[in-house]
């Protein structure tokens, strides 16, 4: 009854992508937001609001697209609040982000009360891509997933092109690096920061909906279980690059997925330790990323976290 090594590797990698996807969405959203100079620490709360909104709408309408759209709108609303507080009112970005985390946690618990323990009539199921899914190992890992996973591939590519190959992408980065210069060039710093904070929040909301509509279709208070914080750490690991965010998210998902499977193999490692692994990994990643950015002088956008005031 033992599995073959290949089946084991395939199952871990496939689970890694599924477990990494909600974090990937949130991390991509945060990359976008931080690139424009706004630090948004509310991902945990925003994901929860996205998860509950998506679930509520999917249960009521029976429509997954409506659910995901609702999650994006809800995430965008929380982010708009963050933008209003930090861009317009110039509130400390850390304080605003943390309070919105608490706000999101409370609001999601309140909104979700009627649907706790309610089964959803619809959920995202894996759809194999013809031909591609038959590639050994990689096929099952990348092309036997659900539509939200495929959408994330497109999103990563689109973001990469946007950052490095388009003029608006360049404008966004200049706002994050030196808002004064951007302003002098005629770029509207406030509008830019509002826009990317809100889009970032929408992606984070979709990350939450992935949890409640695809990964474990259900709603339960605090179902993100720290994934929003991990996404923030991943942004640093990714050096604000969407491609590296993919790598980080799947690595994290892989460590997560490996935990139970190592237990099944009958390893002597205590289960508490296996459960701790993803978080140890996060800390290791932070150390690694910080050391790297010192050596190579690549790091956070220069104006990250600083409010901009016109002279």
């Amino acid at each position, binding site marked *: 009854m033992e599995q073959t090594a290949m089946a084991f590797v395939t*199952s871990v990698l496939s689970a890694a992508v599924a477990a990494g996807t909600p974090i990937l969405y949130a991390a991509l959203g945060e990359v976008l937001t931080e690139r424009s100079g706004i630090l948004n620490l509310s991902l945990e709360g925003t994901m929860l609001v996205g998860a509950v909104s998506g679930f509520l709408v999917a249960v009521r309408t029976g429509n997954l697209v409506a659910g995901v759209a609702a999650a994006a709108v809800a995430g965008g609303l929380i982010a708009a609040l963050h933008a209003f507080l930090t861009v317009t009112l110039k509130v400390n970005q850390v*304080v605003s982000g943390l309070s919105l985390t*608490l706000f999101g946690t409370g609001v999601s*618990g309140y909104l979700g009360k009627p649907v706790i*323990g309610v089964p959803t009539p619809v959920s995202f199921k894996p759809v194999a891509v013809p031909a591609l899914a038959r590639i050994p190992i990689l096929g099952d890992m990348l092309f036997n997933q659900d539509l939200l996973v495929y959408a994330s591939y497109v999103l990563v590519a689109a973001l990469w092109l946007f950052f490095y190959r388009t003029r608006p992408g360049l404008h966004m980065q200049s706002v994050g690096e030196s808002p004064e210069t951007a302003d002098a060039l005629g770029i509207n710093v406030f509008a830019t920061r509002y826009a990317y904070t809100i889009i970032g929040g929408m992606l984070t909301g979709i990350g939450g909906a992935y949890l409640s509509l695809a990964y474990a279709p259900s709603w*339960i208070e605090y179902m993100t*279980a720290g994934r929003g914080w991990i996404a923030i750490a991943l942004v640093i690991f990714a050096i604000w690059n969407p491609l590296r965010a993919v790598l980080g998210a799947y690595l994290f998902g892989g460590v*997560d997925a490996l935990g139970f499977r190592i237990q*099944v193999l009958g390893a002597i490692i205590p289960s508490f330790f296996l459960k701790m692994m993803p978080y140890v990994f996060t800390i290791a990643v932070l150390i690694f990323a910080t050391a790297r950015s010192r050596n190579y002088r690549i790091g956070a956008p220069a104006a990250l976290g600083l409010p901009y005031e016109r002279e």
Partner: protein
Amino acid sequence: MLRIRRWVVLIGVAVVLSLAMVGAGGSSFAASKFKVGFIYVGPIGDAGWTYAHNEGRKYLEAQLPNVETVYVESVPEGGDCERVLTQLAEAGCKVIFATSFGYMDFVQNVAARYPNVVFMHCSGFKTAKNVGTYFGRMYQPRYLSGLVAGKMTRKNLIGYVAAHPIPEVVRGINAFTLGVRAANPNAKVKVVWTNTWYDPAAEKEAAKSLLEAGCDVIAQHQDTPAPMQAAEEKGCYGVGYNTDMRQFAPKAVLTAPIWTWGPYYVKTVKAVQDGTWKSEQYWGGMEEGVIDIGPYGPMVPEDVKKLVAQKKQEIIAGKLVVFAGPLKDNKGVLRVPAGKAMTDAEMLSFDWFVEGVDGTVPK
């Protein structure tokens, strides 16, 4: 029933905790009714532990028309629950059921201040003159559900998604395994620990890892139906827990060991009303009706149902004792000699697996 409204109040920016504040709305008690309070750790719709207690509360209200119940849900195990307990006592409750282990010390504190109120604490071990504890011998229906799983497995490998490594969970795994092997001596039970009570994502992932390792029936101890959903997705079977979980995975759920608190709540409240109630540590078995084996899915054949019904009668009659010797642990050491049965104290401190369990108890 008095409806309790919850207002989620957001406390200021620097405050680390967000608190759910509970306000009793519309305090219009009928003065003549005997009031009974319930405090729950989870939401009443959790399809698990709290849901089962709330069904018991509804049963109590239906059976005793002179009783009025009040409940507060989602009360964390901490300082907050002392305030809620006090509030229930102040609201005139004569009996208060505190339905989570972590309420234990707070029940003691409040009970000392309200000596005329009877407090019943579920699953704890601290009593007082006006505090009793109560729990059910869940291992009995777990044994019965093991019989079903043992009959239904084709690969002779059953997965068990285990919660926290505490005696209650270990006892459940052991009873289940004894049931499995009574029906099918070749079957094994593979255990994975999640260290959660309620994390659907983790529990589903744990179930998937067992299914990938070749298990074709999944049993669980957590309060979410996520392991059952994982079984359904793979076209395998599952044994739920707490309540009938068939609505979440209709093609997978064979049955479930379930809580049926209603009759016990009626009995206890009646005893308090008659003045015959005395503090005790109650651990009720199947003969008391606190626990049962849930309804069956359509795939369970009649002869399996008949076998379970027969074994259930033997348990009720005291002819079948789940943890009776000879019992070996999963390393082959004889732990309970033939002719002996484990005592309650031994069962309450279980820290080893019986023969047939593939797994370890983390120390």
